[in-house]
Every structure is written in structure tokens, then in C-alpha cells.
């Protein structure tokens, strides 16, 4: 009798826990190493903050691998609730209408207030559609900024250059005399192509930079960027600039070793640099611009990745996804993420919180990314939307590598990029038919 009571009690307890079962959702991301730990921490914090929902983060490899895994899973009907997709994959995932639920729709349907104006200016429209509706929730957002070795610049008696003219005529010669290679950068398509157009407010593609249609043509073969690459090859000859390959880390290492004085990287690199014992002081400032191209430089846009709510899930699970997104945009969550990783806080409220907390007084360089994203906007600063863009970037990397190893000329390289990119764009437009 006693025993059967116990059994019944257990049975009831089990039934009760079933009826209050948490809704579990999966979140596939591409954040490895320390970033992965920070990502897992956010998920844990969310799970601890309430009892209704549980989010399970799963690391899926690089950005490209995560996107491919998500696509394959979607085709098999096994997609996760949330998929992290990077900037270059935006056209693929947003183009496939029906694969995702627009974050704006998801939040509004689940009674969460959504106002795109809450987000800082450079973040708003990169993952939005042509009507300005936000499709993907910006998650790890960064922008290319200029890091410099404070000791090196002091030794050369120069200040960080505001323009490329200043770099060419003043900064680089002085740094060379002081025994440094003046400049290196880590991502030619992102920093010196996409954001080059944004910084100078130049159109990067037709159809409003690709947002308004599929029959887009790339406008990369223009005089401003060709002049920039010609200048770069001259800097390379004069040993003002060095290129260490397409890999990100290969170009960052010489800066960390103190060989290179100025390095263009991601605002998200800040956390990693600050954690290292570099043996010199570093700081950061905005990307320089060409005065010959514009006297009113504009903002850059975000790189990094966004979270997409995948379609084909139950309403209960979508509610859980919405709750997680709401949690992500909380100023406290954003501020913590910003501090740990160096990625920018995506909302004005989170930015204000970081300011009020005095974070930028102790680490002024951490504010550069967000300041640059908040510079005046122009008609070409929202971002770009081009299909097969991962391949277009690969074409750029290939041709840029050939320019910098003397295999091809700037003129031929850009003609090639234009042709191959337009071929890819027209192929992509037909995949959507």
C-alpha cells in the first residue's frame, strides 16, 4: 500500500512536470572559441531568467558551414528554430521567402514592441528587405575600424591619419623611418570594397545596392576604388603596406607582433586584442577616407551576422524564439555581450547604458565601432544585397591577391571582378525563378 502510494506520487509528479513542460528551441550558430562561450552564456542566462522556454545553442562551424547546415536541415524539414547567418549570406536567406519569418513580424505577432528606430543607425537596414522591414535580428555586429600602435605612432611623431592623403604623405613615411610597416588589413572585400563604398557614399550596385530587385549589376569597377587599389600597390612597393594573404589572422599577427603600426580590423577584434599582452598600447579610430573622393565621409555598415527565425515551427516554439530575441535586445544583455566580445551594442538603449556605466572612459577604443556606425548616413550606407555573394567575395579575394602578388593589373582585376560578379548575380536571379 505504501509502495503504491509512492508510485502514484511519482506518477503525478511526472504528469505534472509534463504538463508544465518547457518549450525547447534550438539555435545554430557559428561562434567558436571565446565567442562561443559568450554565446552559450547568453543562452544560459535566458534559460535562467524564466521557466517557460529553453534555448539550446549548437555550434555548427564557420559561417559558411552554419549556413549550409541550416539549408540542408531546412530541405530535410529538420531546421533549427534560430539560424545565425552572416552578412555575405544575407541575400540567400532573405531571398528564400518562406524559409524564415521576418523578425519584425515574429516580434509583433508575439506582442513584443518593435521599433526599428531603437536600433543604432548603421545596424538597422543591413538585414532588412527593400521596404525597410527587419528580417534578421542583428546579433554579432561589427564594423571595420582602424587600430594603431600608440607607441609606434608616438615614436614616429605622428597622429592617426584621418584621410588616406594624410596617411600617404605624412603618416606612412614617418612610420617607415621609425622602422615600421605602416599598414596592414584583414579583409579586402569587407574593408576596402564594401565599406569603402559606404564610407565614401558611393553606389556599390544598381537597384539601390541590390535591395530593390534581382536583376542587379555590381558597380565595383569604378575610378575611386581603382585609384585606391593603385595607391595600395604603390604603398606596397614603398613598403608602407604589406599583405600577408587572404586569411584574417595572418594579417592581424604582424600588428600584434609590433611589426605593423596600423591595422584595419573589426570592431569585434577589440575584446581579443585587449585580452592579449601585446607589449605596447593600442587604440582605435575611424577608417580613413579619400579627400579626393569626398569631403563628407559617411558611416560604415555592419558586418558580422544576424539571427533568423526559421519557418515551419509551431506557434509555441515561435513564441519561445520571440522571447529569446526580446531577451537579446535587452540593454543589459547587449552591454554584457559588447564588453565580453567587442561587438557593438545594437540598440541605442544598450549604448546609453554602456556610456552611463563609464565603460568608454576605461576603454575608449571600444566605442569607435559604434561611433563610426552612427556617423551621418547617405543613400549608399545601408549595406548591399547580392546573391551568391560568398562566391563574389571569393572572386574579389582571388583578384586582389593577384594584384598584390603582381600577377595582374588593377584594371584587369576589376574588369574580371565586374564580369564574374555580374555572371553570378544573373545566375542567382534565375535560381529564384
Amino acid at each position: 500500500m505504501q509502495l503504491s502510494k509512492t508510485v502514484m506520487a511519482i506518477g503525478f509528479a511526472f504528469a505534472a512536470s509534463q504538463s508544465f513542460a518547457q518549450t525547447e528551441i534550438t539555435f545554430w550558430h557559428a561562434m567558436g572559441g571565446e565567442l562561443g562561450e559568450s554565446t552559450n552564456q547568453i543562452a544560459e542566462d535566458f534559460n535562467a531568467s524564466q521557466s517557460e522556454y529553453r534555448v539550446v545553442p549548437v555550434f555548427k562551424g564557420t559561417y559558411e558551414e552554419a549556413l549550409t547546415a541550416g539549408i540542408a536541415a531546412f530541405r530535410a524539414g529538420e531546421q533549427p528554430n534560430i539560424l545565425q547567418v552572416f552578412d555575405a549570406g544575407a541575400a540567400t536567406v532573405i531571398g528564400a521567402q518562406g524559409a524564415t519569418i521576418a523578425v519584425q513580424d515574429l516580434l509583433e505577432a508575439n506582442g513584443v514592441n518593435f521599433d526599428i528606430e531603437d536600433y543604432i543607425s548603421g545596424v538597422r537596414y543591413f538585414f532588412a528587405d527593400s521596404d525597410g522591414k527587419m528580417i534578421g535580428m542583428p546579433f554579432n555586429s561589427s564594423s571595420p575600424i582602424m587600430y594603431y600602435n600608440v607607441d609606434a605612432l608616438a615614436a614616429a611623431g605622428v597622429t592617426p591619419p584621418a584621410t588616406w592623403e594624410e596617411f600617404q604623405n605624412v603618416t606612412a613615411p614617418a612610420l617607415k623611418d621609425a622602422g615600421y610597416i605602416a599598414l596592414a588589413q584583414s579583409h579586402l572585400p569587407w574593408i576596402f570594397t564594401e565599406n569603402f563604398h559606404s564610407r565614401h557614399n558611393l553606389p556599390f550596385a544598381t537597384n539601390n545596392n541590390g535591395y530593390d530587385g534581382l536583376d542587379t549589376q555590381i558597380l565595383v569597377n569604378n575610378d575611386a576604388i581603382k585609384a585606391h587599389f593603385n595607391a595600395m600597390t604603390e604603398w606596397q612597393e614603398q613598403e608602407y603596406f604589406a599583405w600577408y594573404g587572404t586569411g584574417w589572422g595572418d594579417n592581424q599577427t604582424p600588428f600584434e607582433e609590433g611589426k605593423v603600426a596600423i591595422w584595419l580590423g573589426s570592431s569585434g577584434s577589440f575584446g581579443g586584442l585587449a585580452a592579449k599582452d601585446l607589449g605596447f598600447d593600442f587604440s582605435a579610430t575611424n577608417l580613413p577616407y579619400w579627400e579626393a573622393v569626398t569631403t563628407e565621409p559617411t558611416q560604415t555598415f555592419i558586418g558580422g551576422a544576424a539571427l533568423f527565425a526559421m519557418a515551419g515551427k509551431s506557434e509555441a516554439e515561435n513564441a519561445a524564439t520571440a522571447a529569446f530575441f526580446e531577451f537579446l535586445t535587452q540593454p543589459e544583455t547587449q552591454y554584457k555581450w559588447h564588453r565580453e566580445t567587442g561587438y557593438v551594442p545594437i540598440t541605442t538603449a544598450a549604448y546609453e547604458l554602456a556610456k552611463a556605466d563609464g565603460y568608454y572612459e576605461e576603454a575608449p577604443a571600444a566605442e569607435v565601432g559604434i561611433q563610426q556606425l552612427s556617423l551621418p548616413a547617405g543613400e549608399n550606407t545601408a549595406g548591399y544585397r547580392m546573391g551568391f555573394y560568398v562566391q563574389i567575395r571569393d572572386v574579389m579575394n582571388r583578384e586582389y591577391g593577384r594584384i598584390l602578388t603582381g600577377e595582374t593589373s588593377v584594371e584587369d582585376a576589376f574588369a574580371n571582378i565586374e564580369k564574374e560578379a555580374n555572371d553570378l548575380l544573373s545566375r542567382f536571379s534565375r535560381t529564384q525563378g
Partner: protein
Amino acid sequence: MKRAGFVNRWLPMLLLAPQLIIIAVFFYWPAAHALHSSFYLQDPFGFGSTFVGWENYTDLAANTEYRRIAWFTVLFTCLVTFFSLALALVLAVKADKVIRGARSYRTLIMWVYAVAPPVAGFIGVIMFNQSWGPLTRLFEFFGRDMMLGVNYNDTAFAMVLVSIWKQVPVNFIFFLSGLQSIPKSVREAALIDNRSASGRFWDVTFPLLAPTGFFLLIINITYALFDTFGVIDTLVKGEPGNNPMTLVYKVYVDGFRGNDLGGSSAQSVILMVLVLILTVVQFRLVERRIHYT
């Protein structure tokens, strides 16, 4: 002569079924799928697709970059196959003669076999590190600036070197066992007829090793074409850039990185045809001239 046979027609089918099912599921079905996809341009998520006929193939034929990659693949395959066979043969012949400590020598040569391709590639990345790699230092001593991931030829050199290093042990094991299976009587007879060691090698040992060599030739060509993927991926650090790559890596770059399913399917079909031709040529032409003992 009476042949032993099955009475029931279905029993042999049943016994073959597991193998046939595995081949059908893991080879014919994906191959048919790839063939089908190669005639379409497809939205990666599977929403839209356009029938384009042979266009994916004609695009590849017209693409100068694809031709460049094809040529690199041919060169890469020849270099890797030739050098890994030649080095392994030299090592096997020498190791065959060692009397004292033979086992230790053999084990030392063989153990690289256990290294997985990506690990081999990673060792290459370390050896050719731009600022402190031991091999970079060595080349610096001879006045050459090795720039892995920057200079096309340097990266190609590293790929070939690592791929050979990884493959030599496999060939070594086969050549050594091939050498040891040559009858002692044959060797002794040769010793009487010919005093020159190299003469004996080319006239007697080498022809008797031919079956092993032919088998290894096929194995090595397939290795260089397909199994070096891990080495290449690690050496280019996942960023193709201006680095050399092989046709298989290109399939991955376009299909898995770029999500261009039609284009990369067409490329895999081309590779399938290539392997088919290679197999036919090898068995039809080469095998006739080789005597298996």
C-alpha cells in the same frame, strides 16, 4: 567441367542484396541526384529552380578560372603521384637491405600513415608559418622568401610537399611487402647473371614489382585527386583567395561555401566522368602490359 551453382535463382540475389543496396543508396542515388541537379539552377533552400539544360557545363567550359584549376589539378596529381611513388620505392629498396634495426626503420617510415589529412595540412601550416615556420626559415637561409597563402607558387609547393609526405608511407608499406614477396631463388639467379646492383634492380626487381606499382598508381592518382582535400583545406585556411586549388576543392567551394548547387553538381558530374575514363584507360591499356605473378 561441371560448375558449382545455385539451384535457386533468388538466393544469390539475396546474398548480394546488402552490397547492392549500399551501392545504390550511397553511390547511384546521389550520383543520379547530382546529374539531375546539374541541369538546373536551384535556390539553395529548394523554393525555386530553373531548367537550364547544358548551361552549367558550357559555363564551366568557358570559365578561364575553371580551366586554370583543371590544369593545376593535372600538374598536382602528376607531381604527387610521381614523387610519392618514387620516394617510397627508394625507401623500400633501401629498407629491404637493412639488417640491423630493420623494424625500427620501417616503423619510423610507416607511422606518418596514421596522420589524418587535415592534421598533415595543419603540420604544413606550422612548418610554413610566415614568421617562424622552420621550413620558411630554411628557405630564407637559401635566400627564398616563402609566403604560404600569399604567393600562388609557394602555396602550391607546400600542398605538393605535404601531400607527398602523407602518401609516401602507404606506398612504402606496399613496395616493401612487394619486394619481400620476390622469391629468393630469383634474386640469387640474378646475382649470378648480373653484377651491377642497379642493373639487377631494373631488369629483375622492377618488373616483378610492376603489379604492386600499377595498383599503387591507381591508388595514388585517386589520392591526389580526391583525398588531398583535407590537406588543401587546411593549407588555404578555408579562404581560397588567390591560392591554387584542385577540382574537388572547387566543388566544395562553389557548392558548400557558395550554395551554387547546379554549378557544383555539374562539376561533380565532370569528375565522375573523369574517374570513369581513368579507370577504363588504366584497366584496358595498362593492365595488358603487366604480368601478375
